[in-house]
């Protein structure tokens, strides 16, 4: 399966990238497992995520073709 992964704000700067395409074995994994696969460590504390532009938890499933985003706590307003 293939998913597109987006990073925002401090996370984008620290990782040095804004977007990547990830090729993964199997046909589903969780938001947390995707992070582990990409970064070889568990998700950091206070990580926020979205799947297909909707708020997601670490347990939210990710499937082929999904758009996944990781970001720090939001600070708008």
């Amino acid at each position, binding site marked *: 399966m293939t998913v597109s992964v*987006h990073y*925002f*704000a*401090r996370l984008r700067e620290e990782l040095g990238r804004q977007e990547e395409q990830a090729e993964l074995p199997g046909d589903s994994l969780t938001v947390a497992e995707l992070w582990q696969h990409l970064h070889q460590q568990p998700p950091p504390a206070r990580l926020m995520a*979205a799947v297909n*532009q*909707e*708020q997601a938890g670490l347990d939210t499933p990710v499937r082929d073709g999904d758009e996944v*985003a990781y*970001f*720090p*706590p*939001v*600070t*708008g*307003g």
Partner: protein
Amino acid sequence: MSVTVEIHPDDFDPWASVQQAEQAIPAQARGAASVFVGRMRDFNEDETVTGLFLEHYPGMTERELERIVAEAEARWPLLGCHVAHRVGEVRPGDALVLVATWSAHRVAARDACSHILERLKHEAPFWKRERLADGSDRWVEQNTPGT
């Protein structure tokens, strides 16, 4: 029910924006309007902030704002909501956020306006990076509490 959500890459006049959005609300029913406008201050945590960069997640931002407004509509008898948010490079004094709600009743308008603002601050994908007087930058780690 009139709902408008705007993302502004440049400075905008919040009062003109409210005035325009209000045209879509039936004049003889609107009764009460409650508005909040947040602007960039030149201080935060006791250091002098000279500028701000507002990053957002295009697409998700608009969806989240619409979801937050729909949640308020389900809870209060509203006639209209208008939400506008600035993105990009911001200067002190510029408007950052505008939330306006219309209802036949003042308490509904006021409570819905507060609710939308608090939800926006905690859920909508915007991130602030402050530029300090010494030329350094820092990401704002969290919003100040609303209550």
